[in-house]
């Protein structure tokens, strides 16, 4: 019987060979014998183990046999033509929600040129299906009903989380305050903790708002693009005036008041053409302004936008990410945290061996709610009727939800089946795919090479830490229990 290797990615760290096994998302260190076996069985047609064993010196044969069995047990070798395991099934439906993203307003006091809510690539529709305009602000009543809906739709989970989103979220602070206090009270009655998060452009971080956010331990993400030049290029008021000088003193005030008891605060940077190098932006936000972490995301846009990133830009971003990753590894080897959250999140997934059937929790554990109480896949899709999933009043449209999750399952994304980065990427963001290909179920083929290179960088960084300071990785072995506070990782670009 012939055997061949399954899909895997080989990489080295400090001269030591490692492999990332795609079907399982296992990371293993190889030795000389296993590397040799992999070389001999990597042909798609496979090879017979018996004749190959006989080519080895007799004293190496028992070792080779043992190594062969270990590779087979780890899922790296399979008999040619052996039936593959059936694709993982969808989780049992109806799947309990964990997070609800409340779009408390679709208005904004900034006019960022690249915004997907108002810019050229928006999917939301300001009119309801019947032609009447949508409410610009979510009422307190709708927000409280959303809280009830979440508690009801998350039976079986201990804690849940609510993320407030916009527009500029803080334009509707009244509703946020009421909904938060209501959720705390209802959660207490039922013995179920509720965690809160919000994303803001920081223009309205007044003392009153800050005290409230600190008191309720909000996870706060602040959209900011970096130094004054970069911030003011796209993140402007409607007059065209930049927002940097207004927001930075407010952010510093917030960080100072939040630090003693609040959760870490992240900056979210939207990467567009013409920006300062990523490491420079990172150090400006961490060292000069005082953020705890910084996450970067390339702008979501159709290709022909003036701010769109071309291939050359993406190559430069990768080179810049490599520099920050080296800094991260050096810090980790010294037992210190580094705030480059893209890599931090990737290493977390790699260490746990996360293998995703869907790229994110949208429609699964997470849904968005529009100002009118309509349910959508996520906050990016809430006001697009086509992707509606019901309402908080009538509940989730389970049939539509199932159909969507079936259509977007990794087993349906044929190009992904040959890609080693599949467990981490799983085809990428639905919204990004919708903007590019008008189909949320399409894999994001325009950034495959980039994702593979980034995954390779993450694996090399991970292996370097596993070799030099494995204790650091215990940070990623969180005990399950309280839900991770919902801070959406892609909440930039808005």
């Amino acid at each position: 019987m012939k055997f061949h290797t399954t899909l895997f990615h080989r990489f080295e760290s400090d001269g030591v060979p490692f492999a990332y096994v795609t079907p399982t998302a296992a990371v293993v260190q190889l030795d000389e014998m296993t590397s040799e076996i992999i070389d001999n069985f990597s042909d798609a047609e496979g090879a017979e183990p018996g004749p190959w064993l006989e080519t080895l010196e007799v004293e190496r044969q028992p070792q080779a046999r043992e190594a062969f069995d270990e590779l087979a047990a780890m899922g790296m070798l399979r008999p040619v033509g052996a039936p593959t395991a059936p694709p993982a099934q969808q989780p049992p439906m109806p799947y309990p929600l964990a997070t609800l993203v409340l779009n408390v307003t679709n208005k904004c006091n900034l006019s960022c040129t690249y915004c997907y809510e108002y810019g050229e690539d928006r999917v939301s529709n300001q009119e309801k299906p019947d032609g009447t305009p949508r409410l610009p602000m979510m009422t307190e009543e709708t927000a409280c009903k959303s809280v009830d809906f979440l508690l009801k739709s998350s039976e079986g989970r201990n804690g849940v989380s609510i993320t407030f989103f916009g527009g500029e979220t803080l334009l509707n602070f009244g509703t946020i305050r009421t909904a938060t206090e209501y959720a705390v009270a209802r959660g207490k009655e039922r013995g179920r903790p509720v965690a809160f998060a919000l994303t803001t452009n920081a223009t309205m971080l007044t003392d009153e708002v800050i005290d409230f956010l600190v008191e309720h331990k909000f996870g706060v993400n602040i959209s900011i693009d970096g130094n004054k030049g970069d911030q003011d290029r796209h993140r402007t008021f409607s007059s065209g005036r930049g927002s940097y000088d207004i927001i930075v003193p407010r952010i510093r005030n917030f960080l100072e008041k939040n630090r003693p008891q609040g959760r870490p605060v992240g900056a979210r940077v939207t990467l567009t053409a013409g920006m300062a190098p990523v490491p420079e932006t990172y150090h400006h936000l961490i060292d000069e302004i005082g953020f705890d972490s910084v996450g970067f995301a390339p702008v979501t846009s159709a290709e022909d936008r003036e701010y769109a990133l071309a291939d050359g830009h993406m190559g430069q971003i990768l080179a810049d990410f490599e520099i920050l990753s080296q800094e991260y590894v050096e810090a980790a080897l010294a037992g210190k945290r580094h705030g480059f959250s893209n890599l931090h999140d990737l290493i977390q997934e790699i260490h746990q061996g996360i293998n995703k059937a869907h790229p994110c929790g949208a429609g699964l554990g997470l849904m968005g709610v529009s100002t009118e109480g309509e349910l959508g896949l996520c906050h990016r899709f809430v006001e697009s009727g086509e992707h509606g999933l019901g309402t908080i009043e009538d509940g989730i449209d389970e049939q539509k939800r199932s159909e969507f999750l079936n259509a977007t399952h990794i087993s349906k994304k044929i190009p992904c089946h040959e890609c080693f980065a599949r467990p981490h990427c799983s085809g990428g963001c639905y919204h990004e795919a919708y903007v590019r290909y008008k189909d949320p179920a399409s894999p994001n083929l325009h950034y495959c090479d980039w994702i593979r290179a980034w995954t390779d960088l993450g694996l090399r960084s991970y292996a370097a830490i596993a070799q030099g300071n494995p204790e650091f990785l215990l940070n990623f072995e969180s005990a399950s229990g309280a839900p991770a506070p919902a801070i959406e990782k892609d909440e930039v670009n808005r």
Partner: protein
Amino acid sequence: MKHVRAINQKARLIEERFAGAEDSVGPLAERIPFGCSTQLAPGWEVDSGGGTYGLCTPIERDLYDCYHSCYWPAQVPDALTNFADWSRSCGAPVQDWSSIDLVFP
């Protein structure tokens, strides 16, 4: 594992399962009674990779041992009384094992 070192949590999980599979054989084997028809040996068995190559007694090697001496499980026909010609089409089991047929007692 000696040659493949599990690094992340997923790899460690697989490794534990691999080790556990070996351990589970011992106590079970002690409880299995000997004897042709009562033995619970699984018969047409494959290894963890789906093949038969790594097994100590793959079916194609010891087919006749089962058949003639009644060592292997009850689902192999018995040569002693009922199916003396069952293996006629299978001169060299390593090559011809697939040509032997089902029997209907």
